[in-house]
């Protein structure tokens, strides 16, 4: 079997970096700047991009490992990665606790007696912290990492099958998605409900990304570049854009036929609604058609900030979650003016880029220069 020797596709890093920025902007509550993010103009958001690319890079890195060193070694590396993400998640939870404890201590207003009840769990930290360690307590905006941990825990057998019978693996993934939908499978959460990102549903996008990395993208090539596919993708994006406009302009809503509304809503993020998948696929088709692999801008300085963030995605993702907490803190404690939103958003992204540069520098001094083709990404062997 041939080794994957192709040079790393910088588009993956670029779009994952951009997705990290968008996730950061969306995670700051009531951030005025988040109107720029794609979730406002259609069905899918940066999460889809992130999960798909992470599936792609995971297959790229561990697919090579599994071919070279066998199932056991590759599985061990995948599980080590899952453990690293778990540790990152617990670290973020500690920051979350600190923020909550501060608010609980400093804020009181009779208007919000009910809402302050959310801080009650501080009274029985024994239960909450254990539930958080079990990944069952779900702090706001901290749902992506538990999803990742689950996706990686299940990835080794999926990868084994992907390397032997890629089509079968993709079909199995789709069947799991369908079964989860039919039977309502998800992971229970604490104190009630289920996981915000259902791993049984979201695995489809991760496996699809992996399938593309292991030769699927090549097989799709003629389809991806056909005018019909492109036309369908554009039409679907236009439709999603129109539907999105009805969310903000009720007057537009009267032009949306009732039968369409009845059939598309609710657009379920938890279970990765098919409309969201189609929206992501349309975006991907258009991207592939207009941003070629050898796009000159990828090597110019303009894309470098996003690319470097995409190359250190675990660390930058965690930093983004922390910066979103901090940004919200600035809004509540310092100023909530529009200018503050712009400054906080821009400096957050600047900090993410700066951190990514520092991480690259660390990597270079710890290892010495290495060819870019074996730089692992978010799902890679190390960050």
């Amino acid at each position, binding site marked *: 079997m041939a080794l994957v020797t192709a040079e790393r596709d910088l588009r993956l890093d670029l779009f994952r970096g951009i997705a990290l920025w968008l996730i950061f902007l969306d995670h700051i509550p009531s951030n005025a700047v988040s109107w720029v993010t794609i979730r406002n103009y259609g069905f899918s958001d940066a999460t889809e991009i992130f999960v798909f690319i992470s599936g792609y890079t995971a297959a790229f890195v561990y697919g090579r490992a599994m071919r070279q060193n066998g199932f056991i070694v590759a599985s061990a590396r995948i599980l080590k990665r899952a453990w690293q993400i778990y540790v990152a998640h617990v670290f973020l939870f500690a920051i979350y606790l600190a923020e909550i404890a501060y608010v609980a201590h400093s804020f009181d207003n009779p208007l919000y007696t009910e809402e302050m*009840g959310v801080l009650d769990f501080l009274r029985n930290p024994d239960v909450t912290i254990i539930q958080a360690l079990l990944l069952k307590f779900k702090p706001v905006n901290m749902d992506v990492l538990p999803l990742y941990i689950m996706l990686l825990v299940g990835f080794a057998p999926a990868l084994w099958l992907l390397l032997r019978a890629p089509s079968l693996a993709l079909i199995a993934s789709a069947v799991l998605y369908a079964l989860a939908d039919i039977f309502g499978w998800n992971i229970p959460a604490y104190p009630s409900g289920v996981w915000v990102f259902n791993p049984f549903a979201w695995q489809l996008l991760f496996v699809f990304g992996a399938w593309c990395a292991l030769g699927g993208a090549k097989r799709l090539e003629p389809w991806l570049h056909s005018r019909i596919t492109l036309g369908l993708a554009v039409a679907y994006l236009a439709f999603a854009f129109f539907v999105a406009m009805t969310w903000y302009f009720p007057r537009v809503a009267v032009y949306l036929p009732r039968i369409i509304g009845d059939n598309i809503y609710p657009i379920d993020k938890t279970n990765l609604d098919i409309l969201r998948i189609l929206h992501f696929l349309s975006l991907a088709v258009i991207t592939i058609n207009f941003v070629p692999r050898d796009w000159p801008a990828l090597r110019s300085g303009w894309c470098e900030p996003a690319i470097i963030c995409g190359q250190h995605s675990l660390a930058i993702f965690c930093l983004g979650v922390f910066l979103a907490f901090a940004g919200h803190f600035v809004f509540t404690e310092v100023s909530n003016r529009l200018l503050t939103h712009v400054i906080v958003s821009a400096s957050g992204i600047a900090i993410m880029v700066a951190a990514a540069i520092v991480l690259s520098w660390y990597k270079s001094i710890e290892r010495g220069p290495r060819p870019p083709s074996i730089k692992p990404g978010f799902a890679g062997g190390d960050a």
Partner: protein
Amino acid sequence: MRTRAAVLLALAVLTGPAGPARADMPAECRVARHLVEDGLRLPGAAAAIAAKHLNVLVLGAGSSVLPGKGGVNLAYPERLRLALVEALPGVAVTLTTDVTPHRTAAQMAAALALDLEKVKPDLLVWQTGTVDAMEGADTDEFSQALEKGIGAAKAAGAETVLVNAQYSPRTESMIALGNYAEIMRWVAVQHEMPLFDRFAIMKLWADFGTFDFFSATKNLDMAGRVHDCIGQLLAALVVDAAKPEAPPVSGGQ
């Protein structure tokens, strides 16, 4: 932003909203007046008003009440009643509350059956969503609970107005309201019934600087004014929706 808010506030005072709002609704309430004009109808409430007796039931959790001794009189259900009495001269308005803090939609839907039997309301004002979001309740169960409550009210001859969660900037990074707010919006659309978008209204006030929701205080002053406005805007929504000559929904005018 404050300047813009002041200008808008002045405009709102000068021109007033379209439609005959109560002349004495304070300007601070009225800046959000347009957010309760969705053109949806409440024919049952209209009939009750025509029959000179409107019976309202408010079903809610902790954000439908204010703490302390005078809390009940300051909270929006009582302000709603007073505003309805004033806006509907000659109509006997009765309002009953079933408000208990920290209840999910499912718990309230379960309590509703008994309320409907006892009160026999023409109109149900149902505030929910906050506690479900705090507990991270299953969204399917949340929407089923809404359907169950609305269905029970309909069977008992009552129309429903849903009231969504408050805008609470301090706890925004701890309570994920998004999914629950969307479900409430969607359920309201499907049943063609009004949704009182308390979140959007309070967000507007925060953006305009009408109220400072960040202030840490035990004082009920601001909370009382906010609830008064919510009561008055709710009354405006009900009165508009029950008006026989109001334009049809699809006109979009």
